[in-house]
């Protein structure tokens, strides 16, 4: 009896959590007359890829298609990932492998800057981007997201670097390897899985971001996907089929990446609290 109640509650929670995602995919596969019918169909009765075909082949504005926005977003996100991963690895090595005067101060700063409300930085960063002449360019976003993703990336990578047994590096040093060689041949391969996990978070940060992209990019051809979606689909009289197809294409990479690394997210954010 109790077991049934618990399982029932579990099913309700699962329904509440997963339903919007299901509804997004389901709507994207329905023909328009089914979407706008007065009685909603729980599953697509005549599944079709028409909406996907429409957004992938048509142009949203003359000369610019959904795929172009997708590529803009991918370019920004991948550049952010590479730069942030590289810089974070260096910094994480410093705090995990060395003990120096400002180490604790640096760690505290990492925590504090993660709490800066990024929404409050739109105006001064807009000024900086204007002064640097980067307004309307994708590098303005790469630069911005690099700053946003770096503190968490260092915080997370720190644990991975610390987990590599120091004896391995010492053994390499005894064998005559230089510091650069140790870093490249010993530390880097062992930290690589952690680097992948960290990269995914940087990727999601950059991929999902809306406000800054909305503010720094005025030229429609340089829109990232989130901006394009609010701009073209956020209007009244919405045609939900293509909107849901676009949303699905935008969401799927994030969900796949996210599920690969979600464990790290919890331990990273709650820091030491749940280690027990």
């Amino acid at each position, binding site marked *: 009896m109790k077991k049934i109640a618990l399982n029932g509650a*579990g099913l309700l929670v699962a329904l509440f959590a997963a339903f919007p995602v299901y509804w997004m995919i389901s709507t994207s596969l329905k023909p328009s007359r089914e979407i706008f019918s007065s009685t909603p169909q729980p599953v697509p009765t005549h599944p079709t890829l028409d909406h996907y075909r429409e957004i992938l082949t048509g142009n949203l504005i003359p000369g610019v298609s959904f795929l172009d926005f997708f590529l803009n977003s991918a370019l920004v996100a991948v550049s952010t990932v590479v730069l942030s991963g590289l810089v974070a690895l260096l910094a994480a090595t410093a705090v995990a492998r060395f003990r120096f005067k400002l180490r604790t101060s640096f760690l505290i700063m990492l925590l504090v800057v993660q709490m800066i409300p990024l929404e409050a930085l739109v105006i001064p960063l807009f000024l900086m981007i204007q002064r640097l002449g980067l307004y309307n360019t994708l590098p303005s976003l790469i630069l911005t997201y690099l700053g946003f993703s770096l503190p968490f990336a260092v915080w997370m990578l720190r644990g991975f670097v610390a987990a590599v047994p120091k004896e391995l590096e010492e053994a390499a040093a005894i064998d005559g390897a230089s510091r650069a060689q140790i870093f490249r041949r010993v530390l880097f391969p062992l930290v690589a899985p952690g680097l992948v996990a960290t990269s995914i978070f940087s990727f999601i940060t950059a991929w999902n971001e809306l406000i800054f992209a909305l503010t720094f990019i005025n030229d429609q051809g340089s829109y990232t996907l989130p901006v394009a979606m609010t701009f073209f689909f956020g209007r009244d009289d919405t045609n939900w089929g293509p909107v849901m197809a676009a949303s699905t294409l935008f969401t799927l990479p994030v969900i796949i990446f996210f599920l690969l690394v979600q464990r790290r997210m919890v331990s990273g954010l709650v820091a030491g609290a749940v280690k027990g």
Partner: protein
Amino acid sequence: MSAQTKSPETAAARETPVRRRRRVDRLPYLLLLPALLIIGVLLLWPLGQVVVMSFYRLNSVRQLRGDREWPWVGFGNYVDILSDPFFLTVLRNTVLFAAANVLLTMVLGTLVGLLLNRLGRKMATFVASCVMLAWATPALTGTIVWKWIFDDTSGLVTWLFNALPDGLSNSLFGRSDWTGYGWFNSPLLFFAILTLVVVWHSFPFIAVSVLAGLKSVPSELHEAARVDGASPWRVFWKITFPLLRPVFGILIVLSTIWDFKVFTQQFVLAGGTQDRPTFMLAIYSYAEAFSPPPKYGLGAAIAVILTLILLVVTGFYVRMVLRQEDES
């Protein structure tokens, strides 16, 4: 995590040749340099700059580019904001919204965490996977889907209300035809839906963190209490909660910080920055600065107020995390 380099004070370090010692001392700083530069230029400098800007009257992009001078107004922007009755509305919206969302997120998240801990292996995996989906969904697309669910012609909610027996619907709400009903038109309803969206996005993190905490607590304690006949309510408040107090502390602070600066969900749900009665601090700051006519100085002052509020909350957070690091 013992140190590879010895601190300069130790005798061993003093004996090493000067050149080698200096090189070893510098290396960590060199490794940190790029990160420090980036954090300094892209996070700390703008944080200072937003304070500076809040003291000027900045109403054109040309001023930002440095082509025109910046008239100093002292606390003028702050006086303008604080003396405007509208600010009180915004502040009330922000605080009430954050309080309601933190409370609901924490309660739902904790309940789901406790539930996941009690379910059988297969069921727990299934429910946890579904919960992960909500967490993983980007704020943008999650909000767009909810907007579709609340669509005023073919949305699921409109259909559900239409499906109610007319008599019941009439006596409860005074209408039976819901087609064309503007779900987002009244501020209260708008905030209710926004709360639904934000709680949906944020309860998974709480649930998973609470679950992780529960797994680290020896289950014998709970079993013993249950054998002694304690009610689940008592078990939670007398055993679970005290053991997980640090986790709850951090989760509440993090949720507070996140819910104070909700932007994307509101922007998408409201379809931009025109819906002034539902403004909260983050979107208010943005709208003042970037909706024509631009008022960057005023927007900056609002951003500073938001930051100050969050600074206090962050103080709590940092203290908590540092205490945790010390203990573990």
